[in-house]
C-alpha cells in the first residue's frame, strides 16, 4: 500500500487509500479468477485505474489442496495512475493452506490475510506440505500480519441450506461470500456483480439466486460482525476524461483485428489451433459471426497458418494466432508467406519455453525467433505490444503494415498482458486510421503482361486475387524472377530478390513513428530501453527513480523490425543503456549488433514479470 499504512496499527474507520493490491488465492476449482475479475470490473466501473495479473497453473484441476493447484488473481487498483499489478500485496485472500504457503512471501508486512478456516484443517495443511503439527493460523507465525479467520465454507453452507442445491454446488458458491467480504471492505457496491450473475445464470435461476444470496451474506457478515475494524476507500483516479472500459490483452487483440478489417474493408479470416495462452483470441473472434468474421479451427498449427495464407491469397485480412510451440511449427509456412509477399498477421502470445515450458506463465523469449526463425534470408516485420490495451493499437498497426506493405507481420504479445487487464479509453471507430487496400485488376506490364513482382516506390508488389479476369498467374515458394515471378534459379537474380525483400522491410521505417522517450529526457546518464510487456514496470520504476533524483529516462520499443529510423542516434544521447527483458538478453543482442553500443542486459526468466523494485535497484546500481 503506497500510503504506507500498517494495518496492525489501529487505523480509523473508512480510511482513504491511494492504491491497494489484492491477491485472491485458492484452489484451481475455487473460482478465484472469476472472483478477481468481478472485483476488478466493479473497481473499474467506479473509476479506479487498475492493472490485473491472473496467475494460474496449466493443469485444469491439479490435485486439490496442493501448492501445484493454487490459482491466483491479483488486482492493483488506485486513485492514481496504475501501470503494474503491483510487486507485493496489501490483502491476501487465502482459501486454503496451499494458497497461503504460495503467496505469503509477497504479502507486505502488516498486510491483511483473509483465511478460510476450513481450508486449514489437518488434511489441507498436509496437502500443502506444512510440517507435522504446524498451524499457521494459530501458532503465532503470522503475528506480523492482520489475520481474519473466517469459516467461509461453513457460512456459505449455512446460507444455502434451504436452497435445494447439492453439496457440490453449495461449495462452489463460496467465492461469492469472499467477494461480498471484499466489497464491504473496500466500500464497493454489489449491483454490478448481481447483474453479472443474473445474466450468466439466466437459464439457471436457482444457481443465480444462490450466488446472489451468498454474495449478500458475505457483505452482511462484515456489517453485522464488525470483524474488520477498518473499511477502506479508494477514490476514482484522475484519468484523462473520456469513456472507459476494462480490457485484457487477448480481448484487445481480437477487437483490434475486427477494427482493422472494417477500416480496410476486407473480410477477416483467422486460422488457428488452440494453445495457451493464445486461445482466447480465437474464442473472442468466434463470437463475431454476425460481422462475417470467419474463424477456422485448423487441424494443427501448420494448417492454422497455411489456411490463413490461403485466405490472404484470395484477398482476406488473414491472421493466425499461437504461442511459442505453435510458432515453431509455423516457421516453414511463415517463410512461404515471406517469399510469396502476401499480407499475413502472425500473433505469438509468448509463454515460458523452450518446448512445452511454462504454458501459463509469461516470458519474452521468442523475440529472436520472430526475427530470425525461418530458413534462408527471410526478413519480416516484428511488432510488440506494451500493455493489455496497447494490444489493440499494435495489432491494428500490424494489419496496416501487412496490407500496405504486402508482408507477413509478427505481432508479439505475452501471457502477462494477454490475460492481464486495465481500463482503456477506447477510440471511436471514426478516429481510426483508414487502411489502404488495392487489388491489381489489369495488367501492369508495359506490353500488357502481368508482372506480379513489379514493385512500387515502397518496393511493394501488387495484390492480385483469384477471380480477377485476365489476371491468371502463378506464385510459389521457389525463387522468382524479378517482376515476372516466374521460377528462376539464376544466381544474380536470387541475390537481387533477397536484397529487394530485405530492402522492402527496411523501407517500412519511413512509414512508422520515430522513437522518443516515454519518461525522462532525450539526454540522461542512463536510458532504460524496453520492449513489450515490461512497459508498465519500467515506466513506474523510472518515474520513481527520477523523483528520487536519478538522471534516467525510458524508451520503449513497439517496432522491432524495422527499428525506428532515429533509434541509433537517440541511443547515443545516453551515457549508459540498460535493457531489462524476460529472457536472456535478446533485444540486447539486436541492439548491440546493430548499433555497436555497450548496452547492459538485465534478465529475468522466472515465468513472472519484473517487479518495480527490481528495476529500481538495477537503475540505482547502474548509476552508483
Amino acid at each position: 500500500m503506497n500510503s504506507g499504512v500498517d494495518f496492525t496499527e489501529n487505523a480509523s474507520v473508512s480510511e482513504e487509500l491511494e492504491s491497494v493490491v489484492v491477491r485472491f488465492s485458492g484452489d484451481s476449482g475455487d473460482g478465484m479468477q472469476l472472483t478477481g475479475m468481478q472485483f476488478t470490473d466493479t473497481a473499474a466501473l467506479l473509476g479506479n485505474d487498475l492493472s490485473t495479473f491472473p496467475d494460474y497453473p496449466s493443469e485444469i484441476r491439479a490435485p486439490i489442496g496442493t501448492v501445484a493447484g493454487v490459482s491466483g488473481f491479483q488486482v492493483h487498483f488506485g486513485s492514481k495512475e496504475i501501470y503494474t499489478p503491483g510487486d507485493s500485496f496489501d490483502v491476501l485472500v487465502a482459501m486454503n493452506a496451499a494458497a497461503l504457503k504460495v503467496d505469503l512471501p509477497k504479502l507486505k508486512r502488516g498486510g491483511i490475510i483473509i483465511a478460510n478456516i476450513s481450508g486449514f484443517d489437518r488434511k489441507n495443511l498436509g496437502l500443502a506440505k506444512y510440517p507435522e503439527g504446524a498451524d499457521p493460523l494459530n501458532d503465532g507465525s503470522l503475528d506480523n500480519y492482520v489475520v481474519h479467520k473466517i469459516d467461509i465454507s461453513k457460512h456459505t453452507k449455512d446460507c444455502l441450506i434451504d436452497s435445494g442445491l447439492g453439496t457440490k454446488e453449495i461449495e462452489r458458491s463460496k467465492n461469492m461470500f469472499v467477494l461480498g467480504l471484499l466489497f464491504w471492505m473496500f466500500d464497493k457496491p454489489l449491483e454490478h456483480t448481481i447483474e453479472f450473475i443474473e445474466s450468466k445464470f439466466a437459464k439457471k435461476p436457482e444457481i443465480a439466486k444462490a450466488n446472489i444470496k451468498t454474495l449478500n451474506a458475505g457483505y452482511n457478515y462484515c456489517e453485522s460482525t464488525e470483524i474488520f475494524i477498518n473499511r477502506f476507500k479508494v477514490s476514482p483516479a484522475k484519468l484523462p476524461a473520456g469513456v472507459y472500459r476494462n480490457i485484457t490483452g487477448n480481448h484487445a487483440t481480437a477487437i483490434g483485428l475486427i477494427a482493422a478489417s472494417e477500416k480496410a474493408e476486407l473480410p477477416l479470416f483467422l486460422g488457428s489451433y488452440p494453445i495457451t495462452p493464445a486461445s482466447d483470441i480465437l474464442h473472442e473472434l468466434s463470437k463475431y459471426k454476425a460481422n462475417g468474421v470467419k474463424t477456422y479451427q485448423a487441424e494443427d498449427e501448420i494448417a492454422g497458418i497455411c489456411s490463413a495464407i490461403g485466405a490472404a491469397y484470395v484477398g482476406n485480412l488473414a491472421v493466425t494466432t499461437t504461442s511459442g510451440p505453435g510458432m515453431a511449427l509455423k516457421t516453414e509456412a511463415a517463410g512461404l508467406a515471406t517469399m510469396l509477399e502476401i499480407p499475413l498477421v502472425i500473433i505469438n502470445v509468448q509463454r515460458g519455453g523452450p518446448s512445452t515450458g511454462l504454458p501459463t506463465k509469461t516470458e519474452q523469449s521468442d523475440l529472436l525467433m520472430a526475427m530470425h526463425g525461418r530458413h534462408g534470408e527471410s526478413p519480416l516485420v516484428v511488432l510488440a505490444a506494451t500493455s493489455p490495451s496497447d494490444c489493440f493499437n499494435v495489432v491494428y498497426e500490424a494489419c496496416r503494415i501487412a496490407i500496405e506493405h504486402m508482408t507477413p507481420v509478427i505481432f508479439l504479445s505475452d501471457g502477462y498482458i494477454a490475460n492481464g487487464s486495465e481500463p482503456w479509453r477506447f477510440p471511436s471507430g471514426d478516429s481510426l486510421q483508414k487502411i489502404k487496400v488495392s487489388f491489381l485488376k489489369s495488367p501492369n506490364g508495359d506490353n500488357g503482361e502481368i508482372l506480379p513482382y513489379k514493385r512500387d516506390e515502397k518496393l511493394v508488389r501488387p495484390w492480385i486475387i483469384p477471380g480477377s479476369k485476365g489476371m491468371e498467374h502463378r506464385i510459389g515458394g521457389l525463387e522468382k524472377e524479378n517482376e515476372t515471378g516466374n521460377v528462376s534459379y539464376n544466381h544474380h537474380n536470387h541475390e537481387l530478390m533477397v536484397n529487394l525483400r530485405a530492402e522492402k522491410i527496411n523501407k517500412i521505417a519511413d512509414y512508422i513513428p520515430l522513437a522518443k522517450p516515454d519518461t525522462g529526457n532525450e539526454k540522461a546518464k542512463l536510458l532504460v530501453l524496453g520492449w513489450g510487456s515490461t512497459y508498465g514496470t519500467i515506466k513506474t520504476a523510472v518515474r520513481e527513480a527520477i523523483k528520487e533524483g536519478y538522471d534516467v529516462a525510458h524508451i520503449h520499443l513497439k517496432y522491432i523490425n524495422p527499428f525506428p529510423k532515429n533509434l541509433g542516434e537517440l541511443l547515443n544521447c545516453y551515457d549508459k543503456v540498460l535493457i531489462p527483458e524476460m529472457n536472456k538478453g535478446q533485444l540486447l543482442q539486436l541492439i548491440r549488433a546493430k548499433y555497436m553500443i555497450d548496452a547492459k542486459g538485465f534478465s529475468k526468466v522466472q515465468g513472472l514479470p519484473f517487479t518495480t523494485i527490481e528495476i529500481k535497484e538495477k537503475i540505482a546500481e547502474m548509476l552508483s
Partner: protein
Amino acid sequence: MESVTEQNIKLTSKDFSSDQEVKWCPGCGDYSILKQAQTIFPDINVPKENLVFISGIGCSSRFTYYMDTFGMHSIHGRAAAIASGVKAANPELSVWIVSGDGDSFSIGGNHLIHSLRKNFNFNYLVFNNQIYSLTKGQYSPTSEKSKITKSTPYGSIEDPFNPPELALGANAAFVSRTIDRDPKHMQMVLRRANDFKGTSFVEIYQNCPVFNDGAFFIFTEKETKKEEALFLEQGKPLIFGQNDEKGIMITDSFTCKIVNYKEEGIAPENLWIHDEKNKTKAFLLSQFVNMEQNGEMFPRPFGILYAVERPVYEESLISQINAIQAKKGKMTLDRILSGDKTWVIA
C-alpha cells in the same frame, strides 16, 4: 451463366497452357494428367479466372506452373491446408489440389484426412507413382513392402497405405481412381470430380519412368489389362477377364469371390452390381488390392468407388454466418469497441 458458357465455348485446351516450359522427365505420366486436365477445362463450366491450382512439393506439384490459371506452388504437404483457407475465404473459386503420394500420404497426411473429413468442395488429385522421385528414388508410403530403393537397399519393411481405404476411413465423400495411360477414363473421372460437390479424392496411378518404371503396367498393357483392371460403371455388374468372362459376387458372409459367370451359368444381373452410393461395397472394393482367390489376385478397381454428397464445409460456414447475421444483426464497430460495460471520467 450464359456469358460464362459463351466464354468457355471460345476457349480451347491451349488457353489453359501457361508459357512456362514443362520440365518433367521424358515419358513421365504427369504429361498425360496435364493434357487431360487441359482438355476438360474448356467445357467444365467454370470461368477461367475462378480456377485455382494449389500444389505442395514433389514432381506432381510443378503442375501448377504449367496451367494458365491462378495457382500457388506451396510447401511440402500443405496444399490441402492452404486450399482450405482459399475455399473458406472464397467459396466461389474452383480449387484443385495437386499432390503426390509422398506429399499427401506422408508429410501432408494430417491435412489430407482432415480435409476429407471437413469436406470442402474442392478436388484433391494425388499422383501416385509409389516412389519419391524429386528426391531421386526413396520408397514412399504407397511403395510395396520389400521394395528396394536408395534408402532401402535391403528392402522396405513397411506395409503401404491403401489410398481408397485411407480416404474412406477419413469419411471422404468421393473416392475414385484412374490411371495416366487411359486418357478417356481420366477425363471422365476428372469431370465427375469437378461436378461432385464435396472433397473429390482422385488417386491417379502415374508411371515414373526413371525411378519406378512399369509399376502399373499390368493395368495398362494389352496382355494383362483385361485380367488385372476392373472398370467400374454405376449400375453395371463387376465384369473383367480376357473375354469379359469373369465376374465378382458378394457372398452371404460379405466375402468376395471371382466367378466364371458364363461357364457357371450365372446371369450378369446376379453378379455384384456397382453402386457408388454404397459405402460397404466401396470398402470391399478398396480391399481388392489385397484379395486373392486360389493364387489369383482380384482385379484392381478403377473409376468412382464411392460418391455420396453431404454438407460441404464452406457452405455450412456461410449459412451459419447468414443465420447469425439474420438473428443478431451486424454489430457496429463502435459497439464492439465499447463492449457491454463502460464508465465515464469527466
